[in-house]
């Protein structure tokens, strides 16, 4: 389904989704991030890209698995499967959209993760094509994506200046459009031509090149023991910015949070974890197989451009560029891949 939506009617459509929780980018604290939209009038799609990725809607930073307590000396477990309201997220950039099928694969491969899917199945992603790259570090086209890629999105919107072209990509997306059907107009031939022109222009903007991805995977495989990694991680501070902001990083940790030690009451909780933290691979014995920052950088890069490819036939990177832009010390995954490729 393809429709035209004027800038003013966007509010009407959002208001028609009143039985859902609607989120959209908002500029607060000097940063764009997803925030709850209470009314259509609050929506602002002039954003660049959000600092946090859309993964958090299906894979929140904290997920309670179950509660536990001791009753008459016997442990009792109470499952706590999330049951969220249908959620619609506006303004998802195509790179983030492409991240979701990659996360879906992970949480569905050998074991269907009920917590992830309880949220994911209620989630409708409304994408917004990028008419031009937001930052010099965008590289979606270098990893098989595009500024108007539909993969992973339920709806793709394209900004045509005074109006949006809105395309329902999945059944879920079409349904969300149906709910605001009065807001939409038919697509004219002129509109269609303009969308194609805008998309073509968006693809023509120069992005950071990456070269042949198969060759990169091969180069990474061969440089496992290379001293390059330590050199490239020389200024790494070992924080979690690159992975926490990444639309595809999905590693987690599971902890028991004891509320009352006397009654043994508590929760088992999943939280995001991060391969750059020293305790990520810490063994009980005290030995850490990835004890230095070089091996941790290698792990992050290898996972995205080699291991994930081996397992799932695609890169675990969609070129959003957050890890480059937000790195406090300028570690640049493209420069890293270039150097590994040249070695």
């Amino acid at each position, binding site marked *: 389904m393809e429709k035209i939506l004027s800038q003013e009617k966007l509010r009407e459509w959002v208001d028609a989704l009143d039985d859902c929780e609607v989120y959209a980018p908002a500029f607060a604290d000097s940063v764009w991030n997803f925030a709850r939209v209470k009314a259509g009038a609050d929506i602002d799609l002039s954003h660049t890209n959000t600092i946090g990725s859309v993964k958090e809607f299906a894979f929140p930073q904290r997920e309670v698995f179950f509660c536990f307590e001791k009753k008459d000396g016997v442990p009792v477990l109470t499952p706590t499967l999330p049951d969220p309201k249908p959620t619609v997220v506006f303004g998802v950039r195509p790179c983030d959209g492409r991240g979701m099928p990659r996360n879906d694969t992970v949480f569905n491969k050998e074991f269907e993760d009920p917590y992830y899917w309880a949220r994911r199945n209620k989630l409708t992603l409304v994408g917004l094509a990028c008419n031009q790259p937001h930052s010099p570090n965008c590289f979606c086209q270098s990893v098989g994506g595009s500024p108007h890629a539909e993969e992973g999105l339920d709806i793709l919107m394209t900004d045509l200046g005074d109006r949006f072209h809105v395309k329902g990509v999945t059944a879920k997306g079409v349904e969300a459009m149906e709910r605001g059907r009065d807001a939409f107009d038919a697509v004219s031939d002129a509109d269609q031509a303009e969308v194609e022109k805008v998309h073509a222009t968006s693809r023509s903007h120069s992005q950071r090149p990456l070269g042949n991805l198969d060759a990169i995977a091969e180069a990474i495989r061969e440089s496992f023991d290379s001293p390059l990694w330590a050199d490239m991680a020389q200024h790494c501070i070992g924080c979690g910015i690159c992975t926490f902001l990444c639309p595809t990083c999905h590693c987690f940790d599971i902890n028991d*949070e004891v*509320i009352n030690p006397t009654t043994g009451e*508590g*929760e088992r909780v999943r939280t995001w974890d991060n391969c750059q933290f020293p305790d990520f691979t810490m063994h009980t014995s005290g030995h850490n197989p990835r004890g230095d920052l070089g091996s941790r950088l290698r792990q992050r890069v290898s996972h995205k451009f080699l291991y994930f490819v081996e397992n799932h036939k695609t890169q675990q990177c969609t070129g959003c560029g957050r890890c480059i832009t937000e790195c406090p010390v300028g570690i640049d995954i493209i420069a890293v891949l270039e150097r590994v490729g040249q070695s």
Partner: protein
Amino acid sequence: MSNPSKTTEVQTFEPRIVAFLCKWCSSAGSDLAGVSRIQYSANATPITIPCSGSVSPMYILSAFNKGADGVLISGCHPGDCHYMEGNYLARRKLYLVKELLQFIGLESERFRMSWVSAAEGVKFAEVVDEFVEDLRVLGPQNRLKAER
């Protein structure tokens, strides 16, 4: 008395105080209050520590995190420290903790310090009673308490 339901609510709220008491003075002071049969509020959970100077700011944050309505730290009067200067170091450190807690907007009445010697059972009872009354007015501490 115009709002009976509210009055009941206030009456049922019993503030919980975590009291870190120096073993050389305030802890003995609280014992003295007990053996002297001084009536005072039973809302403080005493934790005996070797010296007020040994209080880590983490104890205070942790107590608030686990739901304490108030935290009291009580040590020896200036000049009386068993370890010569522990209470002076505590005074400086805890002044900063107090300022920091106020800065982030925790109600300033919730963190308190006192000097109570082993002979001051009456003062100890007064300090606790006063604290409990102030906390009753404030109500439960929810700002730093973990939402678990």
